[in-house]
């Protein structure tokens, strides 16, 4: 499977309640809670697009967007 390439972390600050589940389970330590207890992608360059933060977010507040071209390429193989 080709590597997914990160486009951005789409974070809904209105919906995020700062529970820290995504921060705790991120295998690459990409995410952090800021001073308002909202999640931010502090080290996006380390993201491997495993999607675990998105899948486990109880607030539907984080979405991992990957590059569209890469997505299509991976589907056609």
């Amino acid at each position: 499977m080709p590597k997914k390439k990160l486009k951005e972390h789409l974070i809904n600050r209105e919906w995020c309640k700062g529970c820290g589940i995504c921060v705790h389970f991120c295998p690459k330590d990409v995410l952090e809670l800021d001073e308002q207890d909202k999640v931010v992608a502090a080290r996006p360059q380390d993201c491997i697009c495993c999607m675990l933060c998105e899948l486990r977010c109880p607030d539907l507040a984080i979405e991992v967007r990957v590059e569209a071209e890469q997505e299509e390429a991976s589907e056609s193989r």
Partner: protein
Amino acid sequence: MAVKDYIRERFFPHMWCPGCGHGIVLNSLLRGVEQLGMSKNEIVMVSGIGCSSRISGYVDFHSLHTLHGRALAFATGVKMSKPELNVIVPMGDGDALAIGGNHFIHAARRNIAMTAIVMNNRIYGMTGGQYSPLSGYGTAATTAPYANIDHDFDVVQLAKAAGASFVARTTTFHARQMTDILKSAIVHDGFSVVEILTQCPTYFGRKNKMGGAAEMMEWFRDNTTPIGSKAKQENPDLIERGIFVQEEKQEYCAEYENVIKRATGGRS
């Protein structure tokens, strides 16, 4: 369709506490429905009362928010009158197995096609942390400050014994497995029971000194194992997760159609 197309965004952020596992159940369920390519119009969600039951307000399916413990009774009525719809019934542990215990076993016995989800956080969260039939011996709750002396049900064994034709268990830590199991449960033609271990950091976690939401999910990771694993043989205390029962069995609505045909001699 994207996951967000299946929710009523105007009610977000939802009312569940920070870190509540019910949101992860919602998240995984929406992904399952999306992956099955179902339309919003072919699903009815029927729920009772409790934190878990608030889930029906957040999904943009047909939804019914009914009485405490009676979700399966209402759902039976919906399914009998509109058998072509997919009925999903999320319930809390107290809702499903205390006040709704009889509805639960009889719906399972009839094998009526619907998906009963038991969101098991082992506590009554909405009313202040009273122990439930799934809290378990030795746990602490607002109403059990000197430890609970009630033993808990094993939802999987109970559902199996009552006759459910699909029985599975998973946890909020295993979000991908939860989506896969829910998909299988929804397409199963019969009564499906999915127990999902979910965290209540506000009451169960705090009363039992289990840490925050992430620590409670780690507990699910460390204390569960796939069905029949080697780890289970070495440590019988581990909780098994996966699909326990998946069998073909006469479905209630289809059988009822046959009764109508027999009674009318094919005249209807």
